[in-house]
């Protein structure tokens, strides 16, 4: 491109700073959202991998235990069979400690046999400084209350070697002496060590009340060992370490994919802004472009000029987006991690690290969307005939023809989307492809729908007076401009509607489910830990049952088994009569359910049924202590507590088959006239000598559960807010451009005698009308998007089935957002138009 052309570009951008700025902001916001999610996801994934590495070490396989754990004697048997360096037993758990600053910190307690560790996790058997190793090791092995810790973590916790660290597990406090600190020369190693509390296996068993049982045994196998399964208890399972981490990774993949896809919506909206800004830039310079062509500038050069301008905007906007996204990621990573912790497994992530792929992705998205969005107007610009400044009217005629074409394309895209969504598949990316096709199709349909809408409502418009008529006609006559603005606004608002409706539907389902699931009046469970890890000690159980206000108790045990369908949570239940009816069955008979369970049948959670394809009448094969066993499935129940497999089973059957007597939670029915809150206090006091239990009334528990729910959707809400922000910027930009574009027309109106006030009013009314139209369009589109998200994407991602609800406030918000943004956007041009002298306005261009 010649310097002259470049200067022309530059001067144009400078003369219309608002438009360029808004496009920048739009693309920056979109990229920021996408980059932030990519970085947050990336950090979570890396932290997960690092933790997995640290904890799995160089194991090739691991033996995972059934609910009763693995016996103490198993490692020695395996060592005799497999030889040296192949076997490392592990006991692990989640404990918490108080920070000097007052907060709490969760630590991963890892119990190891240091004499088995060298081939697996050499870092856990060496000292930070030579010479300090063995004193620490001696104490670590020979005293039950000693631990080693990463130096950085120790510093954060404010403990040093020789000092004691108070930890809590299952409501009981333990004091551990820190006998040595671990360090790693590289950041990856430090990340892996972070928040690990390493104990000798004996001390770990004692600290976690798990004497006599091991949680897993790491193995290093090379394939020459033959069948080691014969040595194992029947409910134990050998898995390759790779398969294990793959399973864990897959657990969160749908979640992360959803976030990524949602974050792209903001980029999508940002692309509309670019399209808008570029179109504006082209329309405004029709004459200039025509002259340039006449002066010998080639089509290719014009194309390069327009695309170059867009590229500059895209590049600067993306760069801003990267910076903003990096900043945003620091907050998002906390939300993402918290959600993973709430839904899947424990993960500790300290801040979002930067990674080149995520940043490159953001840049590519920003630049790609920009260039793609700028291409149509750029092609149009390059098609301008030499010397001819296309009359505005002919441009609009062309635009109206385009409306039909766009509508046709939109309908086609919509059909493609529908087909993609209706395909009987569980493929998630396919669902999102359908989703985006639908969104794009709808956007293309918007201008046509606007024409139709105004035609139908044409007869009503005179009621608004001349100004109303003028405003309405203006919308249609400048469709080349308004069409894009409307489409952008509609899509952006619809996205916020869709996400809002989806969250509301979800929340509603959870509320309903909680109503049904929480029928006892008081719930008791040990605090912290992974579900099922901590148990209520027998003495505390006795104390609970002894309270005079306690009528009946329900006992629940979370037992984890690894089946052919992956890890499953067994809800081993011994329910009071009142609680037995509370399971909301999706399929199967409620009546014989309980007796069937007591006879050894199971009911499975709906998400698991969806995922596994199992239904009532099928059998579920589970590894028990006496070997694999087939359980008839007699029911499917709703469960929103996790998207992994959950299986309802009688606690009696569970105890018999897995030899696990633990109790993870207790539900308490009270006698008729008892005051739940009073009894809560009494039970807390009665159990305190044995265990600091969480004793909560049903109301408190429900509130807590919904808090977790809201937390889970906090990331989604952030993305929704970003999309809304981009929509807002889009409206401001589109309407601003529209007003500028019509400066001459408005000048004519001024010259014809309209007062500045009347003119301002006209612009405002027209803006408002656009907002209203977009708002109206966005409601059905938003509901459609919500339906897709709820019935297709959610189901495929998590297996949850929900009913769509129509939350009034979400719909109202949408209208308000569209209308409000439009009005606001109209203010500045209205003021400017009203205060421009007609002569000046007429001299425009």
């Amino acid at each position, binding site marked *: 491109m010649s310097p002259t052309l470049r200067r022309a570009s530059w001067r144009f951008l400078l003369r219309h700073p608002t438009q360029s700025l808004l496009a920048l902001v739009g693309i920056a916001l979109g990229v920021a959202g996408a980059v932030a999610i990519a970085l947050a996801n990336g950090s979570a994934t890396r932290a997960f991998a690092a933790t997995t590495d640290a904890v799995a070490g160089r194991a090739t396989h691991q033996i995972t235990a059934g609910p009763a754990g693995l016996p*103490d*004697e198993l*490692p*020695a*048997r395996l*060592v*005799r069979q497999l*030889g*040296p360096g192949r076997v490392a037993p592990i006991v692990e758990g989640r404990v918490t400690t108080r920070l000097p600053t007052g907060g709490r910190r969760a630590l991963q307690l890892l119990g190891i*046999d*240091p*004499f*088995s*560790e*060298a081939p697996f996790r*050499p870092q856990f*058997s*060496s*000292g930070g400084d*030579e*010479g*300090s*190793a*063995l*004193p620490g*090791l*001696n*104490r670590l*092995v*020979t*005293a*039950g*209350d000693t631990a080693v810790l990463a130096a950085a973590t120790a510093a954060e916790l404010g403990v040093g070697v020789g000092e004691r660290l108070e930890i809590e597990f299952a409501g009981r406090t333990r004091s551990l002496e820190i006998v040595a600190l671990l360090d790693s020369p590289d950041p990856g190693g430090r990340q892996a060590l972070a928040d690990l509390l390493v104990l*000798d*296996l*004996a*001390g770990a*068993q*004692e600290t976690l009340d798990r*004497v*006599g049982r091991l949680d897993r045994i790491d193995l290093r196998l090379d394939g020459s060992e033959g069948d080691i399964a014969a040595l194992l208890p029947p409910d134990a399972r050998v898995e390759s370490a790779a398969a294990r981490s793959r399973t864990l990774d897959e657990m969160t993949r749908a979640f992360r994919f959803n976030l990524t896809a949602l974050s792209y919506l903001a980029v999508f909206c940002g692309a509309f802004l670019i399209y808008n800004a570029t179109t504006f830039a082209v329309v405004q310079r029709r004459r200039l472009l025509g002259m340039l062509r006449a002066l010998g500038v080639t089509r290719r050069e014009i194309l390069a000029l327009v695309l170059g301008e867009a590229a500059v905007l895209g590049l600067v906007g993306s760069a801003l987006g990267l910076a903003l996204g990096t900043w945003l990621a620091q907050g998002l990573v906390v939300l993402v991690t918290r959600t993973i912790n709430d839904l899947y497994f424990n993960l500790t992530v300290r801040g979002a690290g930067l990674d080149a792929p995520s940043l490159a992705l953001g840049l590519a998205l920003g630049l790609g969307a920009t260039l793609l969005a700028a291409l149509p107007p750029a092609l149009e610009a390059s098609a301008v005939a030499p010397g001819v400044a296309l009359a505005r009217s002919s441009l609009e005629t062309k635009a109206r023809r385009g409306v039909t074409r766009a509508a046709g394309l939109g309908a086609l895209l919509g059909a493609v989307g529908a087909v993609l969504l209706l395909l009987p598949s569980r493929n998630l990316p396919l669902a999102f492809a359908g989703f985006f096709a639908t969104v794009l199709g709808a956007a293309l349909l918007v201008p046509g729908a606007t024409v139709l809408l105004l035609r139908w409502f044409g007869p009503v418009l005179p009621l608004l007076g001349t100004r109303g008529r003028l405003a309405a006609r203006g919308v249609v006559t400048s469709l080349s401009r308004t069409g894009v603005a409307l489409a952008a606004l509609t899509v952006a608002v619809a996205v916020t509607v869709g996400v809002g409706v989806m969250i509301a539907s979800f929340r509603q389902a959870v509320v309903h489910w909680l109503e049904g699931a929480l029928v006892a009046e008081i719930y008791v469970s040990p605090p912290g830990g992974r579900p099922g890890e901590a148990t209520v000690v027998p003495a505390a159980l006795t104390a609970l049952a002894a309270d005079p206000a306690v009528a009946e108790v329900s006992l629940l045990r979370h037992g984890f088994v690894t089946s052919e369908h992956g890890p499953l949570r067994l809800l081993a239940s011994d329910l009071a009569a009142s609680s037995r009816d509370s399971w909301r069955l999706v399929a199967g008979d409620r009546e014989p359910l309980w007796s069937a369970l007591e006879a050894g049948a199971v009911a499975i959670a709906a998400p698991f049924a969806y995922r596994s394809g199992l239904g009532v009448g099928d059998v579920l094969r589970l590894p028990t202590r006496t070997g694999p066993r087939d359980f008839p499935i007699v029911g499917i129940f709703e469960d929103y507590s996790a998207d992994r497999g959950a299986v309802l089973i009688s606690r009696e059957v569970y105890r018999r088959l897995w030899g696990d007597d633990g109790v993870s939670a207790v539900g308490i029915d009270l006698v008729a006239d008892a005051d739940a809150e009073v009894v809560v206090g009494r039970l807390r006091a009665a159990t305190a000598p044995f265990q600091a239990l969480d004793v909560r009334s049903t109301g408190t528990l429900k509130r807590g559960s919904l808090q977790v729910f809201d937390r889970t959707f906090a990331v989604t809400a952030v993305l929704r807010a970003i999309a809304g922000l981009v929509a807002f910027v889009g409206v401001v930009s589109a309407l601003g451009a529209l007003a500028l574009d019509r400066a001459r027309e408005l000048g004519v109106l001024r010259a014809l005698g309209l007062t500045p006030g009347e003119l301002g009013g006209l612009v405002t009314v027209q803006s408002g009308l656009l907002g209203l139209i977009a708002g109206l369009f966005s409601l059905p589109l938003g509901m459609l998007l919500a339906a897709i998200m709820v019935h297709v994407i959610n189901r495929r991602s998590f297996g949850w089935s929900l009913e769509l609800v129509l939350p009034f406030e979400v719909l109202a918000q949408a209208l308000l957002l569209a209308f409000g943004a439009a009005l606001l956007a109209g203010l500045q041009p209205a003021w400017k138009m009203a205060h421009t002298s007609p002569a000046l306005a007429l001299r425009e261009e």
Partner: protein
Amino acid sequence: MRILGLATLLALTLGCRPPASEAPVERVAEALRGSGGAGFARAIAPREFTFPADHGPHEDFEVEWWYFTGHLATAEGERFGYQLTFFRRALVPPDAPPETPARSSAWATRQVYLGHFALADIDGGRFYFSERLGRGAVGLAEARAEPFRVAVAEWSAETSGPAAEPTGLLPLRLQAKDGDVALDLTLALDKPLVLHGDRGLSRKGGGTGAASYYYSFPRLTTTGEVSRGASRFGVTGQSWLDREWSSGSLAADQVGWDWFSIQLDDRRELMLFELRSRDGRPETTTRAGTLVAADGSVRAFEPPAGALEVLDHWTSPRTGARYPARWSWRLPELGLDLEVVPLLAEQELDLGFRYWEGAVAVAGTSHGAPIRGRGYVELTGYGGKAHPGR
């Protein structure tokens, strides 16, 4: 007499960082001196040995071992030397404060066991060595007196039948395997148990408690099988079992030792050691020996200064460590003049720490008449890497 730096060995086996230079290694060795025996029972005075109880562990003492060495041969005359050692080490003294709460885990222990296994294929010129480590709990490693068993990981030595001698130990079955090198031997009584030093109290220096309790079975008839690669060999031969336990028996300036166990063809046995001090002067060197007559009668003696002369050296191509490699013992008091020659130069164990422990041939004169024999020699303190400390 083999007081090995078990602590050092443990630490390094556990995977300490490889030393960047010699200096940190010395620091490790220093640090790993640990209690130096403080808090543990000490070998101060002769004691009454009680068998079979004393074949089992003495957990009040810091270190202890069951040390088997022997010469084997096939019917075709192929020769092998072997070493199978079980070390026990107490990580903390028995009077260390009791932990609260009391230990309930079966994994809780204060004892760690270490095994060393070496096979010298003398005619094939190959030397194999490996080690095992395990805590004295949940079957990973253990030692007990009745019925006798000592084991670490998959290696073990245990009484294999009804007791065939008064102390209740023999016959013993030894099993060890590492990769495709294995041994499965049965040891039976040939000559009875011998107490070294003063009724089993073996002095290592001048100070109080600078001693160990030390007894041996100096000649055990051995039969069994040795495997190396795809080949299995039926073998017979003679073994020597050393039993020793102590706490902090070596002084800080004692840097290493040369130890000899010799089985003479006239059915006499000889145990000899020399503890070297840092300054290397004869008057700071501790020497001791035991001569077992053909009839089993025992005579403890102190070899004179200069009785041991090193005739040659060998430098390990693997580690660069330089070891003595041929010796002469002149023991005029016993009428013995012996030359000791390694059957294989390369019998260095490069494990957690380095030492040379190898099969040797013995030739010389007894009161002027030619005599031959076989033996095992252990050389410590030459390895450079991780001075065995104590």
